[in-house]
C-alpha cells in the first residue's frame, strides 16, 4: 500500500510531533507549512492521504481541500480543527473531507480517521476491480455470442428442413409444443430419386432404406394418381404436402402426411429433397390421450368438494368449476367480488390480490352470498398460475365451504353468551355467600347464636341457588327460556330511551323520541328485548360518530303500532352500510367496526326478536344512514310461547 502522507500545518510544533508519530506508524510523511507549499508537494508526490489544518494564513485548509479534490478526487483529506471550529469541520465534510480530528490531537482519534481514509481508498479500489472484471466478462460473453452466431449461420439444408417442419407443425393442432412428442420420419433424397439419409425413427420403423428408391416405402394401393412426393419436388421445384400410406418394416400400413422441401445448390438447382412424414395414427393417439387427460382434469376440477375459480388481475372470473357455477352467478366476465359477495368493488384483504403481488399462496376466511341468498362461510386458498416465462397471469382460488363448522361454532358461542348472561347471577351469588359467611363470623365473634343461624340460612339459600344454576348449565336449554310479562310499552320504551339518551347527547347528537301515546301493553321478556333495542340504538350512535361529514347527526326512535304489532323504528343519518354489510348484519362475529365491534350485538338482537316471533328489517345506503324496523306482535303467538316455555333440559 502507498503509505505516503502529506501533513499541512502552520505550527511547526504540530508538524514535528505529528510527523514523528505518523512516521512511527509507517508513513512516509511530507510536511508543508502552508497551502501553496502543500499543493506543490501534492502535485509532485501525489500522496493518497492529506492531513491538513483548517486555520492557516494565506490559503486555508478548506481551500486546499477543494483544490486537492479538484486535482485528484481520489485523495482522502483529513482536517485538523481547533477546539470549537465545528462549523468549519462540517463545512469541510461537505467538501468531501473524509473525517476531521480536533486539537489537541488524540492518537486514537487520528488512527480512526486514518483507518477510515484507508477503508475508503480500499473500497474504491475494489469497486474499480469489480468494474474492470465486469467489462472483461462482457467482452468474454460477446465473444461467445459471436461464436454462436457463426454456428447458427445456416445452410440451405437446415432452412429447408425447418420450413418443412413448420408445415407439419401447422397441421397438428397443438402447434410446435408437441413437436418433441411427434413421430416423424425424415429422409433425404437425391436427384436420382434414391434415399441418401434417414433419421433413427425412420430406420427403426420403416427399415434401413438408404440407397433404395424414393417411393419404396409407399403402399402400392395408394392408387395410380399417387406420385412420389420427392419426384414431384424435383419436377416442380416446390415443396409438396400430401397424404399417403406407408408400409412399416413389420408389414403394417400407416397413414401419413408427407411434406417435402427442395434443397438447392449455389447455382440454384435442386440438389436434394428433404421428405418428412408424420404418422397420423400416432398423432391421433396422442390427441386422444390429451383429450382424456383434459377430461380427467375437467372432472377433477368439477367434482372436487370445493369452489374453484380462476381469475385475472381485474378479479374477473375466467374459469369456474361446476360447484362454483351451481351456487354462484358466473356470467361472462363477472367479477369475483360481484359473484361471491355482491359487492361493487374488490374486497379488502383480497387473498387473490396478495398472490398477484407476491406469488405466494394465501388464505382467508370470508362470508359469501350464494345466488339463492344463502350465506356460506368459506375458507379460501389461492395459488398463482404462471405463463411460460414465469409471469403470474391468473390466480386460482379454491374455497372450502365451512359453514357447518361455523354453525357449530355459533352454537358454542351462544352457549358462551348464555354463560355470560348468567355471570351477573354468579356475582350476586358470590356476594350472597360473602354475606352468609360475614353473619356467621360476626355471630361467633359476638356470641350471637341467632346471627350464626341467620348466616347459615343465607349460606344454605345460596347453596341451593348454586345447585340450581349448575343444573341449568349442565342441562343447558337449547333456547333461552323467555320470561314473558305483560309490559306497558310506553314506560318500557321510555326506559330504553333514557338508558341511551345521555350517551347520545354526550356526543352532540340529536335524539328524538317519537312515541305513540296510546301504545298499550305488549307480551315481551322486557330484560332481553331492552338489550336488543339498546344494541341497535348504540349501533346507530356508532354510525353517527363514524360519519366524518360535517352534517348534524340525528337518531330518531319512533314507536308506533298497527293492529297486531308494535313497531320500533330506529333511524340514523350516520355512515350507512353497503350491500355486503347489510347482508351480513346479523351474522355472528360479523363486525363492520374493526376492533371496536364484537360482532355479537346484532346477532343477539336478531335472536331475541326472533324468539319474540318478531321481524327485523334494515334499509341502508352508504353515506345516507340506516333505518332498522322491528315489529313485535302485541300478543305472543302460541307457537312461540310453546317452544320457549318448553325447557329443553327435560
Amino acid at each position, binding site marked *: 500500500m502507498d503509505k505516503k502522507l502529506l501533513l499541512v500545518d502552520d505550527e511547526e510544533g504540530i508538524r514535528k510531533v505529528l510527523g514523528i508519530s505518523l512516521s512511527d506508524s509507517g508513513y512516509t510523511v511530507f510536511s508543508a507549512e502552508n497551502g501553496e507549499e502543500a499543493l506543490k508537494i501534492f502535485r509532485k508526490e501525489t500522496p493518497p492521504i492529506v492531513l491538513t489544518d483548517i486555520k492557516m494564513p494565506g490559503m486555508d485548509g478548506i481551500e486546499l481541500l477543494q483544490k486537492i479534490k479538484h486535482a485528484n478526487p481520489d485523495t482522502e483529506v483529513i482536517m485538523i480543527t481547533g477546539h470549537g471550529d465545528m462549523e468549519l469541520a462540517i463545512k469541510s465534510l461537505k467538501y468531501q473531507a473524509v473525517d476531521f480530528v480536533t486539537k489537541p490531537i488524540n492518537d486514537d482519534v487520528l488512527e480512526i480517521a486514518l483507518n477510515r481514509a484507508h477503508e475508503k481508498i480500499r473500497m474504491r479500489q475494489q469497486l474499480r476491480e469489480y468494474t474492470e472484471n465486469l467489462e472483461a466478462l462482457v467482452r468474454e460473453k460477446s465473444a461467445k455470442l459471436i461464436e454462436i452466431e457463426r454456428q447458427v449461420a445456416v445452410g440451405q439444408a437446415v432452412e429447408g428442413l425447418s420450413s418443412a417442419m413448420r408445415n407439419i407443425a401447422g397441421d397438428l393442432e397443438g402447434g410446435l409444443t408437441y413437436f418433441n412428442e411427434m413421430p416423424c420420419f425424415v429422409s433425404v433424397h437425391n436427384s436420382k430419386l434414391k434415399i441418401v439419409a434417414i433419421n433413427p425413427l425412420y430406420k427403426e420403423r420403416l427399415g434401413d432404406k438408404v440407397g433404395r428408391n424414393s417411393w419404396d416405402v409407399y403402399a402400392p394401393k395408394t392408387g395410380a394418381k399417387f406420385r412420389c412426393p420427392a419426384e414431384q419436388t424435383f419436377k416442380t421445384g416446390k415443396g409438396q404436402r400430401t397424404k399417403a400410406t406407408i408400409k412399416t418394416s413389420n408389414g403394417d400400413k400407416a397413414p401419413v402426411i408427407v411434406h417435402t422441401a427442395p434443397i438447392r445448390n449455389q447455382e440454384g438447382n435442386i440438389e436434394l429433397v428433404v421428405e418428412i412424414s408424420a404418422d397420423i395414427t400416432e398423432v391421433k393417439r396422442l390427441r386422444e390421450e390429451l383429450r382424456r387427460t383434459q377430461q380427467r382434469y375437467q372432472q377433477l376440477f368439477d367434482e372436487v368438494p370445493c369452489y374453484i375459480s380462476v381469475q385475472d388481475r381485474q378479479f374477473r372470473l375466467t374459469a369456474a368449476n361446476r360447484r362454483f357455477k351451481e351456487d354462484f352467478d358466473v356470467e361472462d366476465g363477472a367479477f369475483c367480488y360481484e359473484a361471491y359477495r355482491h359487492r361493487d368493488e374488490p374486497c379488502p384483504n383480497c387473498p387473490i390480490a396478495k398472490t398477484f403481488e407476491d406469488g405466494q399462496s394465501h388464505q382467508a376466511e370470508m362470508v359469501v352470498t350464494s345466488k339463492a341468498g344463502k350465506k356460506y362461510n368459506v375458507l379460501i386458498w389461492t395459488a398463482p398460475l404462471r405463463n411460460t416465462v414465469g409471469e403470474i397471469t391468473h390466480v386460482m382460488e379454491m374455497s372450502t365451504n365451512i359453514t357447518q363448522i361455523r354453525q357449530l361454532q355459533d352454537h358454542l358461542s351462544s352457549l358462551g353468551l348464555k354463560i355470560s348472561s348468567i355471570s351477573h347471577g354468579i356475582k*350476586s351469588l358470590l356476594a350472597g355467600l360473602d354475606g352468609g359467611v360475614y353473619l356467621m363470623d360476626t355471630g361467633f365473634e359476638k356470641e350471637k347464636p341467632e346471627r350464626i343461624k341467620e348466616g347459615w340460612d343465607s349460606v344454605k339459600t345460596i347453596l341451593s341457588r348454586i345447585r340450581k344454576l349448575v343444573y341449568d348449565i349442565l342441562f343447558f336449554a337449547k333456547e333461552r327460556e323467555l320470561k314473558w310479562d305483560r309490559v306497558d310499552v310506553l314506560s318500557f320504551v321510555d326506559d330504553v330511551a333514557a338508558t341511551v339518551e345521555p350517551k347520545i347527547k354526550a356526543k352532540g347528537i340529536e335524539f328524538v323520541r317519537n312515541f305513540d301515546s296510546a301504545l298499550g301493553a305488549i307480551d315481551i321478556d322486557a330484560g332481553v328485548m331492552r338489550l336488543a333495542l339498546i344494541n341497535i340504538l348504540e349501533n346507530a350512535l356508532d354510525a353517527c360518530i363514524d360519519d366524518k361529514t360535517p352534517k348534524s347527526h340525528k337518531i330518531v326512535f319512533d314507536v308506533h303500532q298497527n293492529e297486531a304489532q308494535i313497531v320500533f323504528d330506529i333511524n340514523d343519518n350516520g355512515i350507512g352500510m353497503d350491500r355486503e354489510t347489510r347482508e351480513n348484519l346479523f351474522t355472528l362475529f360479523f363486525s363492520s367496526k374493526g376492533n371496536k365491534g364484537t360482532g355479537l350485538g346484532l346477532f343477539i338482537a336478531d335472536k331475541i326478536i326472533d324468539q319474540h316471533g318478531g321481524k327485523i328489517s334494515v334499509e341502508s345506503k352508504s353515506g345516507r344512514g340506516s333505518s332498522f324496523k322491528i315489529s313485535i306482535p302485541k300478543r305472543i303467538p302460541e307457537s312461540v310461547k310453546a317452544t320457549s316455555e318448553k325447557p329443553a333440559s327435560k
Partner: protein
Amino acid sequence: MPKKILIIDDDPVVVKYLTAVFSDNGYATCSATSSMEGLDVVKKEKPDLICLDLQMPGEWGPRFYRKLRKDKEFKDIPIVVVSGIDGDHAIKDAVAFVKKPFDPEKLIGIVKMTIG
C-alpha cells in the same frame, strides 16, 4: 341519632348481608326489594344514603333513580351503586360504583366518607 341507610336489592340474602354490615358499623338501616317499594320507603324513612342495585325485576335501578331525583326533597340523597353489572352511565351522580361481590370494609369506607 345514627345516620340511616336505605338498601334496595331484590336479593334478600344481599339485603340481610348489607343490613348486618351497616348496623355493625353503627348505622340505622331500612330496606326494599324493588324500585317501587324503594320510593315508598324513601318517603317514609327519609334515609341519609341509598345503597342501590341496578338489575332488578320490574323496574330497574336507573328508573328508581330518575323518579327519586324528580322529587326536590330527595334530589340530594347520596347513592352508592352495588351491582353485578356495569351501569356507570345510568346513575350520573352516584357517589361510587361497587361491584358484586364486594369487600364490606371498602363499602363502609365509602359510606363513612360520604355521610360520616
